[in-house]
């Protein structure tokens, strides 16, 4: 726990880690106050809309009983149930999500990584009253920003945390890469293959290609394209690497990433064959 990078993670990162019985450390991305406020406001809207809708229907349906005060009484009960039970109901039945949380891709889970149950949902929603003190969740906000799992008071007592969910995507996530024709590996001396780290680096540049001005993009790409280009055989290729560094890097990436999308479509019989194919250690770059 006292390893320096973990300490720094605790301060700077939006992640929290959990070691499971299978001896792997899992990372959870925590939801920050901003996103949670967004989800809260959306839920508030849904709740109010639901209250008005139910009241509108009931006041018509219960019109014959108006003199006994039944519609008003039912309104109070519905308002009460929505105020205190809305979060608990959805978080129990939608496995840690309310409509607002779902829209923002958030989920409440136990700090041990499990799904929450009725009691956790109940506790964290009843304790909103403590989080709200003295005004608009000030206590909850201060508690959340002062503990490493961003738990508000309700989360602390319930032993829960709010995490951001990602859709698990494997391959195909590099949209637009197919616009770049793969740069043939044969053009490299000794069929050089860039290391995974290098490819990762190009990938992150590729994702930012529209955020950077083209000149700056090339400027950054050149730092990597230049040494990579030295491993090319032909003079024209080397010139291409120097003159259009970003284009060159993306085409190299394209050559090595295209197969990810195809890799999972392969038939089992073929897979058995491919396993036997000699896999030489990937040469490392630099």
């Amino acid at each position, binding site marked *: 726990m006292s390893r320096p990078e973990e300490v720094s993670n605790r301060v700077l990162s939006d992640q929290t880690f959990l070691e499971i019985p299978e001896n792997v450390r899992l990372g959870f991305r925590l939801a920050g106050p901003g996103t949670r406020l967004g989800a809260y406001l959306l839920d508030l809207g849904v709740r109010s809309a639901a209250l008005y809708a139910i009241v509108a229907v009931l006041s018509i349906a219960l019109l014959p009983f108006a003199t*006994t005060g039944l519609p008003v009484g039912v309104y109070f009960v519905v308002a009460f149930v929505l105020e205190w039970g809305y979060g608990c109901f959805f978080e129990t039945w939608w496995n840690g999500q309310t409509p607002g949380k779902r829209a923002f891709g958030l989920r409440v889970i136990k700090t041990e990584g*499990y*799904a929450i149950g009725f009691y956790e949902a109940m506790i964290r929603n009843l304790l909103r009253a403590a989080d709200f003190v003295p005004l608009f969740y000030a206590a909850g906000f201060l508690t959340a920003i002062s503990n490493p799992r961003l738990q508000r008071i309700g989360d602390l007592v319930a032993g829960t945390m709010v995490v951001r969910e990602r859709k698990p995507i494997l391959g195909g996530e590099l949209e637009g890469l197919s616009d770049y024709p793969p740069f043939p590996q044969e053009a490299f001396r000794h069929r050089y293959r860039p290391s995974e780290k290098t490819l990762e680096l190009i990938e992150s540049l590729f994702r930012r290609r529209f955020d950077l001005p083209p000149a700056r993009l090339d400027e950054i790409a050149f730092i990597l394209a230049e040494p990579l280009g030295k491993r090319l055989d032909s003079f024209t290729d080397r010139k291409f690497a120097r003159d259009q560094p970003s284009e060159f890097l993306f085409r190299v990436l394209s050559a090595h990433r295209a*197969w990810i999308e195809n890799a999972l479509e392969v038939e089992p019989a073929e897979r058995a064959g491919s396993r036997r194919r000699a896999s030489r*250690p*990937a040469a490392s770059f630099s």
Partner: protein
Amino acid sequence: MNKQSFLRDRGLSWKRFESLLGRAEAPGKPRLAPEEVSEFSELFRALCYDLAQVRSRDWSSSLERYLNDLVVRGHGAFYGGRPRPRGQALRFLSAGFPRRLRENHGFFWVSLALFAIPLVVSWVVVAMEPSLAHRVLPGTTLYNMEEMYSRDFGEGERQDAAMAGFYVRHNTSIAFQCFALGFFLGIGTIYVLLSNGIQLGTVSGYVIAQGHGERFLGFVCGHSSFELTAIVVAGAGGLILGHAILAPGSLSRAEALKERGRVAVELALGAAAMLFVAAMIEGFWSAQPLPLGVKSLTAAILWIVVIAYLGLAGREGRPS
């Protein structure tokens, strides 16, 4: 083995795991067949190994993220219990809740003292010197109270259901706040108990001193058993929260909060159920224009019901 052949070898089993996982996570009963459960656990362990391998070789962070998230979901599905609240509500109310309260009776008595002593003291003081009531409550509130009990019930149009609904919302919200504010070392709970006790005592002393005693007592006695006891029970829940922080014992404060919080919230839920009953009595019964004798007899029976319920319900059978 490079990343490409690794993906080829393992990719399909991840996909298979994903599809099993999707079904394991889905709500509803028959989720995985017995053979599929063991297949699930096998795939899960292999997946964990894959994740460790991807990390140690520093392959692609997108792949790492994918496997990490798959393991996260698998871990939750495999080890996490699923909520199964069906049929538990009844068992909780008939046995679980009174048992919980008796297990924590110390908190109940403290909470009772914090509520009842100021109630009695302010009642007696205000009964002797009614002008003191103005020190506690604003004049308009006192005027409204006096006004309310100076007329017979049943005059004009009664709105029993509306009142019952109002009491459900109002009283239970106070009880929940009384409970939740216990997180602040119990101070919030103590404040709510004291101030409610003082206000209630003041109003009682004042209204009776103005000569509306019969109507006032006739109104409040019916629901008093459920309502006052429930407030004290919610207070006990709040005190448990505060106590968990102040005196966590051998646990860390976070652990103590989690463990005691579960107990505390059960008391709050039981209190909410009692307040629902109280609100129904208050709305539909308390304002009935009946002689005081009938009302006090009912009130006595209800007090016995409450005491018997909290004191006796859910006891283990005596060993014969």
